[in-house]
């Protein structure tokens, strides 16, 4: 049972770093924001594995929910000079 937790944590850590790399690497802002949201969800699972339930709830609600909405509303307002 202990090893299953360790394997799960390692998989989640790999996925966390992968999400962060994708979020930094892509040029388009929309894809970056979606990967940042995924990053927050994976981080929520890791917080739960480390027995921090309150922090996990806050990260799920703020990082994956509200932050994404605020980023989206920001990029919907950005004007690019090339298009007009």
């Amino acid at each position, binding site marked *: 049972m202990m090893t299953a937790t360790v394997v799960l944590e390692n998989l989640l850590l790999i996925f966390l770093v992968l999400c962060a790399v994708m979020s930094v690497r892509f040029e388009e802002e929309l894809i970056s924001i979606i990967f940042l949201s995924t990053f927050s969800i994976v981080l929520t699972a890791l917080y739960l594995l480390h027995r921090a*339930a*309150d922090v*996990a*709830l*806050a990260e799920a*609600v*703020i990082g994956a*929910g*509200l932050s994404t*909405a*605020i980023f989206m*509303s*920001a990029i*919907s*307002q950005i004007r690019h000079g090339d298009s007009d």
Partner: protein
Amino acid sequence: MHKYLKKTLVISVFILTAIALYENFLLVPEYTGLRTGVSDYIISSGLSDTGSLNLITAVLYDYRAFDSLGESTVIFGAVSGIVLILSRKMLPVSSRGLSFIVKRTFGLVTPFIALFSLYVITHGHLSPGGGFQGGVILAVISIIFSIVYGSAFDYRRYSPQVKTAMETMGAFTFLGLGVVGILMEGFFLKNLGFLTARTGTLISAGSIPYVNFGVGIKVGAGLAIIFYSMIQKTFKEDF
């Protein structure tokens, strides 16, 4: 040559930061040696001191309540700055929203989201959760209104004046409980002992449920104001 100099500088900054972080992590001792002291005291006597089953809530709203007051002030400052910066803009009133199916579905789901946020706020001292998390779920309701039903619906149902009044009410609840703490117990934001009931009931743990409620309303209204300000657009070039 200028380009290579810049690149070398940046790479050296990266390498130095990585080495500094690694050395810093090596210096940190094992945590088990650190936890004698404050955390042992809180774990062993937090329940009898505050009556709150959730020790994290006990730390946030009793032992370090002044810290939470500072955090609320930071959120208030961010909201003030955002509203001030974006104050010249006007709301594009869109009453169209999304399709009929989405509107009906969210008409069924939204009351349960509101119920869940109230549950998270009021059970902050019994289960995981508390004022901040529940408040953010309250703000999500405003975001759902804006996206699904159009921003005109959100403006009519849940206008900026109502949000401002709610945020002020939350802040005054927090500060008022602090002042009552001075009057009754002798210290600012001290837990009110005479409100403590049997452990595990909904209104136990002194003033922690009321502080939770104030913080929840304050955070929810503040973040809803942030989102509401950020979806505004100028009509400078559209006319």
